[in-house]
């Protein structure tokens, strides 16, 4: 890198950047570490574990749906209360669905997107030595882990685990007399309250860090989209999660100390739970997709070797989605007995939210247009994201239309939608993000061939699993039913369920390739260079993996992160910190740096 200033000389008052020697004891370095990078990796390990758990639960669900009432191979190990003789019980099925949704949403995708990439990328990409509050950051991780354990513990308590769906509609969720579930639901509530606290602590940290700790020259207009998305997402987390916490606390009190918030018998309102849940829940689904949008924006620009198309509109769209996300929650409740006029308003606002999303999709395409596209594994997954997320987004329009939703509400059409946006969307973006930043995180490359095999097989089998679910939904197949063959009109559709089940088993097996690649590369991967993808952002200017404290001295930023194929330089990339002759120094310069330049 050709910089004009000898950086090592420039020490800034109050700045202790990268530590030349790292003499922290083992436990402070790897377990109770306050280093954002270590915490990010810890979140990664934790949430991949829960992704696996969620995936295993899905396999059991699929077995039951494909072959209702038949003993599951290997199911004999499960206790009598779950699957006597390997045959899944209806009560257990409901717990499976509930916990599959809960683990995937709260313990896999959300910590993967926000916990992992928020922690790992924010300080590096904005040029900060660490988070604003490193110890709070550590506290956030070590609050999330026990919450996860508590959630798992629910499988082993008296009665069943929570089994009212991940949406926990009252009064079913709070009435042991109707659900047969007591302790499981209590643990579910406690776990969500605790993990919510962890998320809030994280969000406070991210927001403060992004506002206050951007390196000189890293103006709002030069922030990478990942950081913009994480910033907006953190605001959503900060303001939405407490609503969930409040609602869950009321649910818990209803169940344990006899309050009657949602109990009609005591004058309460079941609908109130739904309003509170979805007032949180819809912002939540954007929490689950906005960081993915950010990751994909960065990866597509890198892969296309071209500046991101319409950066300002991308930022504006992100903010618009976040705003609109607060006024659409009623679209989950069109059939709940909600006031129909209110339904119409929610439909219109929901329709409008498609517009900023459309802007994003077309801007990604615009970025690829006239590019010079490198199909590295992250890029493949990012393109997979675009093509699959669109299907999920467009199916959202069917449900947004109130009359059509009358028919498809609570059918597999919804299940198809949510997997297209969550798997086709968030998870593909995560595959893109993990493969993209893996070299930086672990200092090793992942195997590209395995990566490509994993991508293509996932892409194909994933569609085989979830695309036919649209057909099931149009056929009227309700969700959360233990045995679809009970209904005559669903029997002709059962072969689709069988097909989906076989495909799902293959899909799961294919994910093991990823797990293998992930673990094996950690130990044996080729050594990663500092900047394997020839990217412009700040994290690629430091070693892989970066030292504790990140940057040796304050990095100075001269341009946005997407200057690919700029005519100003020979290479097709132009790092943000590289000073070209015509570049102005940032307005704000730390005293040390200013004196020298």
């Amino acid at each position, binding site marked *: 890198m050709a910089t004009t200033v000898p950086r090592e000389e420039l020490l800034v008052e109050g700045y202790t950047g990268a530590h030349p020697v790292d003499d922290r004891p083992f436990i402070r370095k790897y377990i109770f570490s306050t280093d954002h990078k270590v915490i990010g990796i810890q979140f990664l390990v934790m949430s991949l574990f829960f992704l696996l758990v969620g995936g295993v639960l899905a396999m059991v669900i699929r077995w039951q749906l494909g072959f209702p009432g038949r003993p599951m191979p290997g199911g004999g190990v499960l206790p009598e209360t779950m699957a006597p003789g390997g045959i899944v019980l*209806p009560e257990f099925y409901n717990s499976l669905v509930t916990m599959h949704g809960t683990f995937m949403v709260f313990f896999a995708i959300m910590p993967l997107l926000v916990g992992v990439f928020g922690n790992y990328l924010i300080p590096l990409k904005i040029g900060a030595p660490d988070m604003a509050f490193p110890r709070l950051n550590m506290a956030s991780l070590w609050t999330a882990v026990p919450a996860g354990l508590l959630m798992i513990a629910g499988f082993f308590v008296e009665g069943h685990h929570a089994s009212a769906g991940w949406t926990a509609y009252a009064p079913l969720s709070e009435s042991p007399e109707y659900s047969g579930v007591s302790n499981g639901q209590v643990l579910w509530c406690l776990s969500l309250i605790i993990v919510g606290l962890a998320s809030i602590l994280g969000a406070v940290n991210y927001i403060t860090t992004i506002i206050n700790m951007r390196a000189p020259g890293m103006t709002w207009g030069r922030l990478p989209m990942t950081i913009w998305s994480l910033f907006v997402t953190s605001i959503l987390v900060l303001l939405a999660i407490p609503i969930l916490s409040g609602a869950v606390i009321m649910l818990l009190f209803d169940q344990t100390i006899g309050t009657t918030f949602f109990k009609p018998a005591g004058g309460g309102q079941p609908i109130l739970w739904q309003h509170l849940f979805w007032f949180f829940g819809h912002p939540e689904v954007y929490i689950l997709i906005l960081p993915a949008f950010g990751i994909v924006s960065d990866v597509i620009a890198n892969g296309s070797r071209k500046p991101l198309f319409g950066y300002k509109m991308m930022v504006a769209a992100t903010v618009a989605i976040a705003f609109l996300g607060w006024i659409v929650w009623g679209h989950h409740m069109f059939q709940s007995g909600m006031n*129909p006029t209110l339904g119409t308003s929610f439909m219109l606002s929901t329709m409008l939210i498609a517009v900023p999303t459309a802007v994003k999709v077309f801007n990604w395409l615009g970025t*690829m247009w006239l*590019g010079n596209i490198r199909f590295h594994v992250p890029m493949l997954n990012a393109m997979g994201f675009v093509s699959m997320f669109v299907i999920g987004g467009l199916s959202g329009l069917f449900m947004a239309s109130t*009359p059509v939703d009358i028919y498809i509400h609570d059918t597999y059409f919804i299940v198809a939608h949510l997997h297209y946006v969550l798997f086709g969307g968030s998870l593909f973006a995560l595959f893109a993000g993990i493969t993209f930043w893996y070299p930086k995180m672990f200092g090793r490359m992942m195997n590209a061939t395995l990566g490509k095999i994993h991508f293509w097989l996932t892409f194909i089998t994933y569609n085989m699993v979830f695309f036919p679910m649209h057909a099931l939904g149009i056929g009227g197949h309700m969700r959360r039913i233990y045995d679809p063959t009970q209904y005559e009109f669903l029997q002709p559709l059962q072969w689709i369920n069988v097909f989906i089940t076989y495909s799902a088993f293959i899909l799961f097996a294919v994910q093991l390739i990823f797990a293998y690649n992930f673990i094996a590369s950690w130990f044996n991967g080729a050594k990663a260079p500092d900047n394997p993808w020839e990217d412009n952002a700040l994290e690629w200017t430091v070693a892989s993996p970066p030292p504790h404290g990140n940057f040796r001295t304050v990095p100075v930023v001269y341009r946005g992160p997407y200057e690919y194929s700029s005519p100003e330089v020979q290479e097709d990339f132009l790092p943000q910190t590289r000073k070209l002759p015509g570049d102005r120094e940032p307005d704000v310069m730390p005293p040390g740096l200013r004196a020298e330049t």
Partner: protein
Amino acid sequence: MGWIMPEGASTYAGDIDRLYYLILVITGVALLIVEVALVAFAIKYRERPGRRAHYTHGNMKAEVVWTAVPTVVVVMIGVLSARVWGDIHRREGPPADAIPVGVMAKQFEWNTTYAGPDGQLGSADDFVTRNELHVPVNRPISVMLEAEDVIHSFFIPAFRVKQDAVPGMHIRIWFEATKPGTYELGCAELCGLGHYRMRGLVTVHEQADYDRWLAQPRAAAETNR
């Protein structure tokens, strides 16, 4: 398997299905545009030695187009949907000549209350059937939905009817069946371990048939009380 709606058997079905197909076509076109562009760009602009990407940060005109067109499209879908929605959830309630029926959902069955000869619900000659709903063809039916324990959802796929039954609430919906026959009634809201088997049958009779059926089980119901 496919994208074709199953055959409908109520007055709503036509409107809802038309709307569904309209959205299917619109989203189908949008999907095609995106996927074709994605694949085409991937092929056309793949990396080749010596090539360099076009250096541009965007194009205002393009942005305006792809903001405006989707806006118009979704607002149109919204307006059309609002009209159908308004017809279904009419401000003035079910048509005046609708036959009143009470449906009480509970774990895991549907109890239907019919007005007796007086045509009034809540009088002494009401009678109840379990997991069965009998209605005449081409007559609006006004259903008062209630739930005893938890939330259930009254779902008759062939009629395109779905409405949650919420404990503590009295929700009125209406529909008009257009074809005699037997249809399945399902529960669409998770309501406990028996949710999957909370099934009922809806029988749509010709008017004469219906009158005959109405005359017959009444005595039995009275002894049941």
